[in-house]
């Protein structure tokens, strides 16, 4: 062993220091690895050396002139000097040549402080004002999705071309002369999409200046890494989306499911009902259409055998601490699950007959089969979470008296409301949440033939579509918002309309019409504009003389919900009636009481409730003396190849078709309306992913300040 290692190791002297390096290493990396800074620009640790910028020049005993250290391999006994007057002169000259064709625009450049050219300029002390510059005055190419190319800022280091060809094997970028200047182009100036670009972003990642940049606005916020993988950073639970999409592509479905399981205990439920902020942010959406991430999640969950995570997601040693969770919706059960895994003894109290909260008593069965909820709750119970259904908690003091040391309040927003308009108390005027609860409990619900639903959100659609299934023949939905601004998701709107629901946007109801105390219709005015004023109060401008009515024998209000917090909880509330949390500690106004879900945020999404449950679990665990580290690595680590290969036609690959199947006769039919994705479709869909996360594996060049 010793012999081998000495054979492949070379000893040389750099700036008087003895340095060891692997044979074949360049002098540049021998120096950098030894902590000796040598300025360099065209070289990049992930790319083959190029040797054009002349910044990394050094002196080597016995060698004529100033060789570029990036293209000079180390040799036994080599004596290298990285600093001398002559070297400094040569480097400054090289820098001045680079700066001559580069605009002085650090002050407004998005790349500033991440720019290698600026850092090198600072290191070498080259003053721009002394450089005789030529202005290229070329137009900035904004025509491609995701990336901007500013030829004015290009210093022809060739990194992007090498990254495109040699690192990724895609091969769409070329050098080309335009007028007197060289630039980076695609073949025949075609668009990136036409050229077979895979939009991997390697070119932008290795660009040392601001010549190739991500479009501003696509990289939101301060955290660049998060901005580059927006599917992951926009997920409230921070699920590693690109990783599980890749695992689906590779056919390793249990591993894909394990990745999701690392962050949430409800992968399958989410596969049905997540409002998928990831898809809104997906960078593929800028190229053509976003990846169908939610369907891939459902696919992964459906093909999960639990083999990779079930053995690892087991409780830690008992802490002897008892925690009560009030409410068994996604927020409460998520908090309970993670607290149980941290070793606490957890009991969930649920006032309704079965666990699941709004998953079970809000969302109708055609959107989320009950077997899916049952199966995921079973996994939560399997780790030892106790669920006491049919038990309403009226006082937190009572829980503390029973020996619970902490309480997580996650009782959702189950209290619907009616508008205070004349006739709102007529028979046949219902509240959405009550209506859905009755439908989901299987209670007798009297729905007339003509139904008007008031509201434009997802709950309103749940009411409207459930009403159709309960026998309504004509369902109108009226909301204040104009069609483009309806809060409901686009697939809800589409599917609802396919089921015959008639949407009446920009409508404000003025009163319920009734006969003998029974509703007969709703009177409306058309809305000219609906907005919020500077104090956040809603404002409605109506169209004069637009009064009209819709006939109805049932009216359902779905205009927002509030939490129903028992007085005995004694918790501080916000003006909106929600539970108030300390921004920094996540605690409520009572010691040992944390809160999560809709009762804190107002009616939101399942994924937000889950994320909030995770946060409450972290805060509670810390409060109970734990580490607050609830994440476990259960998915296998995979090596991802850097090479993608040519991508002709890649940009044009379309999103998997919608698999919505609306039954012909809706009455009494609560069967699911979206079919599972098949294996071929799932593979194809996952192949469309741009793999934005690959880019983060490209090495970062350390600037002089780091040495």
């Amino acid at each position, binding site marked *: 062993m010793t012999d081998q290692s000495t054979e492949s190791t070379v000893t040389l002297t750099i700036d008087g220091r003895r340095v060891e390096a692997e044979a074949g290493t360049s002098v540049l990396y021998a120096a950098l690895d030894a*902590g000796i800074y040598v300025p360099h620009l065209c070289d990049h640790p992930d790319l083959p050396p190029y040797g054009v910028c002349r910044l990394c020049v050094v002196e080597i005993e016995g060698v004529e002139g100033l060789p570029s250290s990036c293209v000079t391999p180390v040799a036994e006994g080599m004596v290298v000097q990285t600093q001398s007057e002559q070297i400094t002169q040569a480097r400054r000259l090289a820098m001045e040549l680079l700066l001559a064709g580069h*605009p*002085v*625009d*650090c*002050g*407004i450049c*998005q790349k*500033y*402080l*991440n*720019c290698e050219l*600026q*850092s090198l*300029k*600072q*290191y070498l*002390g080259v*003053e721009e*004002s002394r450089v005789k510059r030529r*202005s290229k*005055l*070329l*137009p*900035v190419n904004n025509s491609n999705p995701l990336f*901007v190319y*500013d030829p*004015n800022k290009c210093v022809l280091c060739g990194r992007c071309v090498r990254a495109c060809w040699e690192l990724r094997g895609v091969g769409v970028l070329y050098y080309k002369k335009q007028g007197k200047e060289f630039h980076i182009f695609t073949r025949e100036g075609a668009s990136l999409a036409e050229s077979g670009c895979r939009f991997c972003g390697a070119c932008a990642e290795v660009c040392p200046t601001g010549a190739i940049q991500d479009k501003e606005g696509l990289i939101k916020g*301060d955290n660049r890494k998060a901005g580059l993988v927006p599917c992951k950073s926009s997920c409230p639970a921070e699920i590693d989306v690109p990783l599980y999409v890749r695992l689906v592509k590779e056919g390793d479905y249990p591993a894909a499911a394990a990745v999701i399981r690392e962050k949430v205990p409800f992968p399958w439920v989410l596969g049905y009902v997540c409002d998928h902020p990831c898809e809104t942010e997906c960078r593929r959406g800028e190229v053509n259409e976003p990846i169908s991430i939610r369907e891939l999640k459902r696919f992964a969950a459906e093909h999960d055998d639990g083999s990779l995570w079930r053995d690892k997601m087991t409780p830690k040693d008992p802490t002897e601490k008892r925690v009560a969770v009030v409410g068994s919706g996604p927020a409460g059960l998520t908090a309970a699950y993670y607290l149980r895994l941290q070793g606490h003894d957890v009991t969930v109290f649920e006032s309704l007959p079965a666990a699941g909260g709004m998953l079970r008593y809000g969302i109708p069965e055609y959107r989320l089969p009950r077997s899916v909820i049952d199966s995921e709750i079973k996994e939560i119970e399997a780790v030892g979470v106790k669920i006491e259904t049919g038990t309403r908690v009226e006082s937190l003091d009572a829980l503390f008296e029973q020996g619970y040391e902490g309480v997580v309040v996650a009782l959702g927003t189950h209290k619907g409301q009616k508008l205070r308009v004349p006739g709102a108390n007529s028979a046949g005027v219902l509240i959405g949440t009550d209506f859905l609860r009755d439908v989901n409990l299987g209670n007798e619900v009297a729905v007339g033939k003509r139904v008007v639903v008031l509201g434009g959100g997802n709950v309103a659609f749940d009411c409207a579509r459930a009403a159709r299934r309960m026998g309504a023949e004509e369902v109108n939905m009226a909301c204040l918002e104009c069609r483009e601004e309806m809060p409901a998701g686009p697939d809800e709107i589409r599917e609802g309309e396919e089921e015959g629901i008639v949407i009446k946007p920009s409508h404000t109801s003025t009163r319920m019409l009734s006969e003998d105390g029974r509703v007969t219709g709703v009177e409306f005015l058309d809305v000219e504009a609906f907005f919020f004023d500077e104090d956040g109060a809603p404002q409605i401008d109506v169209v004069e003389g637009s009064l009209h009515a819709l006939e109805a024998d049932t009216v359902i209000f779905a205009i927002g919900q509030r939490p129903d917090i028992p007085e005995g909880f004694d918790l501080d509330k916000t003006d909106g009636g929600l539970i108030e949390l300390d921004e*920094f500690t996540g605690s409520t106004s009572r010691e040992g009481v944390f809160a999560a879900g809709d009762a804190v945020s107002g009616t939101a999404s399942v994924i937000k409730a889950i994320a909030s449950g995770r946060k409450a679990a972290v805060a509670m665990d810390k409060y109970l003396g734990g580490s607050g580290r609830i994440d476990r690595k259960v998915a296998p680590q995979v090596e991802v190849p850097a090479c993608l290969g040519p991508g002709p036609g890649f940009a044009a690959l379309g999103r998997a078709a919608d698999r919505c199947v609306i039954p012909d006769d809706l009455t009494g039919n609560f069967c699911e309306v979206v079919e599972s994705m098949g294996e071929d479709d799932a593979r194809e869909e996952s192949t469309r992913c741009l793999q934005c996360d690959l880019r983060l594996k490209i090495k*970062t060049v*350390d*600037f002089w*300040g*780091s*040495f």
Partner: protein
Amino acid sequence: MASIPEKADVAVVGSGATGLAAAVTLAEGGAKVVVFEKQRSLGGTSNFFQGTFAVESEMQRERYVDYTRDECFKQTMDYSHWMANPRVVRAIINESAETISWLQEQGVVFTDAAINMPESPLTYHIIKGKGEAVVKALVDQAKAKGVTILPGTPVVSLLKEDGKISGVVVEADGEEVEVAAKVVVIASGGFANNKEWIKKYTGFELGTEITPVGNTGKTGDGIRMAWEAGAAEEGIETIEMFRVGPVGDEFAMGCNLEQATAQPDLWVTAKGERFCDETITFWDTPVGNAQSRYKKDGYTFSIFDDSSIQRWMERGLDKGVGVEFPPGYKLTNLHKEIQAAIDNGSAEVLAADSLEDLAAQIEVDPGVLGATVEEYNGYCAQGWDELFAKDRRYLRPLVGPRFYAVRARTVFLGTMGGIRVNGKMEVVDKKDGVIPGLYAGGFDAGGMYGDSYPIKSSSGLASSFALNSGRIAGKSALRYLRK
């Protein structure tokens, strides 16, 4: 390459002029210092300044500049209507001269004590190689004195024990790491890129109504951390504004078009009406303030014609732009730049053969623009600006044959407050009690200014405040550490 130490005497948050001045001062006094910088490159906004303010410096004495500390103090306080913290102002002004000498000892070369505007004292000490040279010199000195500098390592929060600062939490490779330190100097450079805070504290919509220049990734980290640790607020509303055009990727800073736009010819609002005496262009603060009245529009226009261009080519600028382009600098590249902008279809630079056509291109009522120019040309003819009393030397009529318009935006160089400090740069809480071990300076600290940057009495003050507050914080912290 340096690794994150478990503990140090001092943690400095940010590697700009404030942080580096504090770090070198502390290291000179024997303290073990670590500087955390969240960006990959060092120096932040401090790479840009071309000169820095001082009074009663040796360089000024050699040039018969007789402006005194007392005069400067009075003028700066008057300028702020005594809204500024007088102890902070006095401390900075008094320290400023010594800081010039100190910087020279660190290897910084000053070429002159001058001024780049009329009617102002010569307080501007011009640096060879700009702020970048100051950053390089201070980093080299810091490293030579054993300071650990860690780029790409953001500080996320402060640690406190028994009411005293006990360290920081930093982020490294996605993990949070605690570093124990008895002293923390906050020098993270303000919040110029924090859209939410800019709206909340200044009322501007970042990106459309106002654009930051020379600021990247400034999210107010230091201010937030200090507030979380109980610091009081001061001066959070003040920003350093001026007027620049054209703005956009195609336009380099300091291009001929930018210089033309800054000249005191005819300026009009988005409605086509004059809005100021254009000679306020000589002083950035008033022109920034005048321009910001039209923040809802997001821009104003500079209007000129071929006679203006000819004058700039032959006689050069009236108003210099930065140190590199003094009055008299000739705009030889202007025609080429205008043509390139027009060829590229720019919406920022427009040209026409008539005022009517120009008005159409800039979407202004041609009647309004026509009346404005007619009125203005009338003032030029009579040699008296009845409207805004502009100096007659700059009253030059617009006669064509071609007319040009450049869109000018409100930009700002930084936010100028946030954390309340005393004259020793100690951070104070809401009862004006000192938070032991916590210091702040530069764009993170308030108290140096009133509602505007006092450009007339003390040009170069922002960088000077950074350097001097850093040095004062360093000296105060050494006393606290009993070094």
